[in-house]
């Protein structure tokens, strides 16, 4: 009875937030419902035959989305938490949204992304069949604490999981590998041949881990993506990934490993990737409205939210920049971004600097000036940097004289703001309407 009341309340809150347009309905319904029925997630998750939990600092959303995309194409009914809402309330919201009081709507598979802290309290409630650990980097110390603390808590949670749980770990991440010993059952490793992640950086590795799932013959193909061969026991699959950067190969590997464990027809995996569209802001390619000059504008959005992720984005973009391109960076210091903006000093903005020409650069967001200083100390010419804290104005300014492509690098809440700016200008649909 309490469960039904909780679902009803959640649905009402969802309806009201949408009606009043005060949000995407990705957190509030769950928050209210949980206050009535704290066991809501556990109870509703029990009705789903198989659940997958994905955690890590970077790549959760892309991995979950990629896997969901493939699972749906393989004919499964999938439920997952959307829009990067990866705390318990986000999961509760998704479950409430898809729950019907009268008849129980059936799902085949739940795919849940959980942030570093929420993993420990929420993962056991979901009774997962598969748990994926993507990576661990420094991220918002104000929220998650130190890396060692995060790892220690993960180990504690792992100890409590039943031994037949399938645990998938990034075998190239030296910190993540340390988790293996905490788990009773078998651990499967995925990784990229010749690469190793130590601390904040990806290195070429000398010795190979024994990998259960591996990407080899990796060829990076600029902003268009990469190609590689996915290998698992007695099986190889040539793959073309339409997302650029090494880090997306790890997400793909994780999705592939999950699909393999679920018994999905993995020979169709590559085919499925060809019509995969990225999650909002995760290397999104945009067709911007035509400029007054009649030229069509091309834009890219790359979310940046912590040093490792940002540096990976810089490494991906830098070799592809051209003198006519424009950079728009937006740094906010809201709770969801981390109120401490010190992290920008650990991100290697030096890698984004072009050496033989100066890019047109605009800094925006509530901490636009901090960002501009960071760029100055990365040897950008301060005279070529425009500071406009108001993102809407900054976007307008970027578009006003756009010649080449526009690269937009926002932090999390700046990205949400950007989505609404783009929606207003007719470029994007609302993110919560995404499937």
């Amino acid at each position, binding site marked *: 009875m309490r469960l039904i009341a909780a679902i009803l309340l959640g649905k009402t809150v969802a309806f009201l937030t949408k009606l009043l347009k005060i949000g995407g309905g990705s957190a509030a319904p769950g928050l209210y419902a949980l206050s009535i029925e704290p066991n809501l997630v556990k109870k509703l998750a029990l009705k789903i035959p198989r659940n997958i939990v994905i955690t890590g600092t970077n790549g959760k959303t892309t991995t979950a989305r990629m896997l969901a995309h493939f699972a749906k194409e393989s004919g499964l009914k999938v439920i997952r938490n959307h829009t990067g809402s990866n705390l318990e309330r986000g999961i509760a919201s998704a479950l409430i949204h898809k729950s019907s009081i009268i008849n129980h709507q059936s799902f085949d598979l739940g795919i849940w992304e959980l942030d570093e802290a929420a993993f420990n309290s929420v993962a056991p409630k979901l009774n997962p069949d598969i748990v994926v650990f993507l990576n661990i980097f*420094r991220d918002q*110390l*104000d929220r998650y604490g*130190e*890396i*060692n*603390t995060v790892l220690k808590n993960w180990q504690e949670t792992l100890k409590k999981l039943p031994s037949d749980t399938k645990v998938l770990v990034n075998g190239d991440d030296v910190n993540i590998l340390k988790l293996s010993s905490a788990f009773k059952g078998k651990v499967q490793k995925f990784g990229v041949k010749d690469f190793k992640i130590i601390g904040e950086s990806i290195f070429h590795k000398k010795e190979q881990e024994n990998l259960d799932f591996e990407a080899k013959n990796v060829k990076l193909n600029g902003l268009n993506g990469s190609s590689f061969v996915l290998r698992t026991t007695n099986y190889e699959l040539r793959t073309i990934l339409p997302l650029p950067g090494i880090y997306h190969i790890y997400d793909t590997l994780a999705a592939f490993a999950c699909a393999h464990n679920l018994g999905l027809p993995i020979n169709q995996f590559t085919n499925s990737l060809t019509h995969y569209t990225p999650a909002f802001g995760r290397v999104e390619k945009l067709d911007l409205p035509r400029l007054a000059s009649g030229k069509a504008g091309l834009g890219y959005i790359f979310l940046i939210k912590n040093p490792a992720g940002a540096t990976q984005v810089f490494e991906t973009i830098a070799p592809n920049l051209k003198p006519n391109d424009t950079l728009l960076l937006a740094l906010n210091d809201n709770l969801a971004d981390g*109120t*401490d*903006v*010190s*992290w*920008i*000093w*650990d991100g290697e903005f030096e890698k984004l600097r072009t050496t033989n020409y100066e890019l047109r650069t605009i800094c925006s967001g509530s901490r636009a*000036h*901090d960002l*501009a*200083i*960071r760029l*100055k*100390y990365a*040897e950008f*010419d*301060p005279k070529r940097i425009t500071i406009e804290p108001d993102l809407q104005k900054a976007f307008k300014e970027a578009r006003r004289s756009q010649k080449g492509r526009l690269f937009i690098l926002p932090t999390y809440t700046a990205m949400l703001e950007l989505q609404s700016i783009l929606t207003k200008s007719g470029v994007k649909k609302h993110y919560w309407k995404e499937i």
Partner: protein
Amino acid sequence: MKKFKISNLKFKIIVGYLYGDLMNIYGDTGNIIALKKRAEWRGIEVKIINISVGDKLKKEEADIFFFGGGQDQAQELVSADLIKSSKGKVIKKEIERGVPLLSICGGYQLLGDYYKPHKGPKLPGINLFPAYTLASHDRMIGNIVIESMFGQLVGFENHSGKTHLKKGATALGMVRKGWGNNGKDRTEGCIYKNAVGCYMHGSLLPKNPKLADWLLQKALEVKYGKEIKLEPLDDTLELKAHALAIKKFG
């Protein structure tokens, strides 16, 4: 920005990054970048050396020290090494002859008498700053603005250790907004000779160029034995961000 005086060309500064591989928790590297760039923009050559566990430290090996914050485990390791490798003693002697130092959070704590964690024994410090730190259950987190001999300083603090200054200690400044050393007595940081300790991340130096330049100036003065006047830089951007931080958080 890349102007420099011929007279400066002979100047060279060696920055000793104490335990840079272990104690660099959040944006601490930004302070190193700020020192390096602000020196280079004036034509002063900069070399950064990492001084870590097991390394020996000699007199005059570094002209300026930086010591950042670390995770609890790293802090234990570093505390033991400061004593075992006698780096602690050398650092103290160097400070006595005027070598400048900036330490933040964990580094600051280990330069005091000791750090007492929740569990386990005290981690001994090197007794440079007349201060001691006790672990607490309060997380002191947020933007911080203090009044100091360098004018107002802005940064971001994130610590649960509470530092208490002993009699005769000089605070770096008084808290205008934020927690500071212990959240009680409104002091923040400590200054002894040309050594500064505090809880201010941010990173601290890029937005507080006055303090950055003071450290550079002291380093050159001690090294070259004469009074130095640094060439001014165009700090419009830095000062604007500094003023905005005070307006927003102060």
